[in-house]
């Protein structure tokens, strides 16, 4: 009961802060839009139609939704380091709620915000001629939340050990860009050089972003953007399973690490 109240309060504060932060809401749109329209339109001319009759911009669109969720989820750790820097973390740590509920509240709060950021990107669906039914959007919600919460836990884990803002931001950038670029947002996973193939498949974000695409554009096994592991084409549920497993491990590590810090 105590813990639920704690999780809820911490979660609520994250939402409240996001609501007041117009700048963050706006900047979270800039990168995805830039990638989608500048990058997408530029490359569409030379790439054109992919296998399965999918237009390149349409192919990119669900990837961009996933990427904005991914980028949003990286705010989880940042907000912990930020709170520490500005002293508010102390108020939270001496409050009569457990560290575990603080870590979970932060993760869920930021994941909710990241999911909202993903939802905002969906308003561009008509522009790129992708149709999103209410049912599709509804089934995307848990997928986006899972991706954000799993990555967010990784952020909490790092933030409980890396205490300075500067060091943390450096580590985040080092992780964020490779993770975003090597997750199949911008390219299909067929015919990649073997080193890149290995990296893409080791990247946990791949298993969070691919199911979003599978839900939006279809998931029949012959489509070129599916993940093939050891000759097996991964279904939506299998991808979700990998993502969830990573998320659970990260959450346990994050709660342990955040709970034991001084």
């Amino acid at each position, binding site marked *: 009961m105590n813990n639920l*109240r704690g999780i809820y309060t911490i979660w609520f504060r994250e939402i409240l802060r996001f609501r007041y932060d117009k700048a963050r809401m706006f900047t979270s749109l800039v990168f995805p839009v830039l990638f989608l329209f500048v990058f997408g339109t530029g490359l569409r001319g030379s790439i054109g139609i992919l296998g399965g009759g999918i237009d390149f911009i349409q192919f990119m669109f669900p990837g961009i939704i996933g990427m904005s969720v991914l980028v949003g989820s990286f705010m989880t750790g940042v907000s912990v380091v930020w709170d520490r*820097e500005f002293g508010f973390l102390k108020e939270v740590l001496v409050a*009569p*709620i457990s560290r575990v509920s603080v870590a979970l509240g932060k993760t869920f709060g930021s994941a909710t915000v990241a999911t909202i950021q993903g939802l905002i990107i969906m308003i561009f669906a008509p522009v790129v001629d992708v149709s999103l039914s209410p049912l599709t959007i509804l089934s995307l919600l848990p997928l986006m939340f899972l991706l954000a919460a799993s990555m967010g836990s990784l952020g909490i884990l790092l933030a409980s050990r890396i205490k300075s803002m500067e060091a943390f931001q450096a580590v985040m950038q080092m992780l964020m860009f490779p993770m975003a670029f090597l997750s199949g947002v911008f390219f299909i996973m067929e015919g990649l050089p073997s080193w890149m193939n290995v990296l893409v498949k080791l990247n946990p974000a791949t298993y969070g972003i691919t199911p979003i695409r599978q839900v939006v554009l279809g998931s029949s096994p012959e489509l070129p953007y599916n993940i093939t592991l050891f000759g097996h084409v991964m279904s939506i549920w299998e991808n979700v399973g990998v993502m969830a497993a990573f998320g659970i491990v990260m959450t346990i590590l994050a709660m342990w690490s955040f709970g034991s810090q001084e």
Partner: protein
Amino acid sequence: MRVCYTGIDMPDYIIHVENLVKKFGELVAVDDISFDIPPGEIFGFLGPNGAGKTTTINILCTLLKPTSGRAIVNGFDVSRQQNQVRQSIGLVFQDPSLDERLSALQNLRFHAMVYDVASSVREQRIEHILRMVELWDKRNNIVQTFSGGMKRRLELARGLLHYPKILFLDEPTLGLDPQTRNHIWEYVLELRKREGTTIFLTTHYMEEAEKANRVAIVDHGQLVAIDSPRKLKHRMGKDIISVKTDNNNKATEEIKLRYKTEVRQDEDQLTFAVANGDEFLPTFIKEFGTKIISISLRRPTLEDVFLKLTGREIREEENIDVFKALTRQHGRRMRR
């Protein structure tokens, strides 16, 4: 006397600290400290920077785990019953700890929620406490726009919101103007009178330490004295003479030789302690060989006690701290 701490019986002491030790690697920050605080006391905790004050507070409020020894707060063990301890205490930290992006009201609501203040009394209590610190009119303003004094008052209000048994004030008025400082003290003293709240205070201001029922002085992680301000000063025994002469070096020699006492030289002024200063002064002026420019006599202050026990002046520390606080705030603003 053995006291049973069960958390149900009313303990004789609201804070009980026993052989407390905290090590950071090789460094011993708190070195075998023991003390007891009865309920309702204002307890002053003084010491130079790095003496272990904040480390001790952090242990008492469960932010740090002791290396050995134990501490009981409101009947609860700080290492094993953290949530109960946290529910019993209120804190005003040395460094700001508000969410500057939210309004005053939102900061207090957050606090009320995590401290489980019943929602039926929440809003009413918030209003009462905001009126008390005179911030009710500003309740919807974002904290970022507040002055240093307003932020401190808000932090105090927040620390009191869940009616803590013990209020920890870690340098509560550092860097504030005297008017705001007095204001904050009015609230604190009124609260103590009304609720019987125990107050655990660290400060650099001697006027504030004088308000304490008892003062503990720590140095190098150890307790060097603990008593009421009056008794501590009394223990000094002597009055303080400050004198300026036209040749301080020669005067120092003469005082040492003639009165067998230690002399301290700050800038162009000599200070030394004598018994019965009132009677000493006329004789001194008559028989002293070096030409005296000015002379004054005063009773010992806590400042003198502090100086004698730690070898450092508390004011020196204060200036450094104010500077640090200012640069920190500035630095933060720059980063935004």
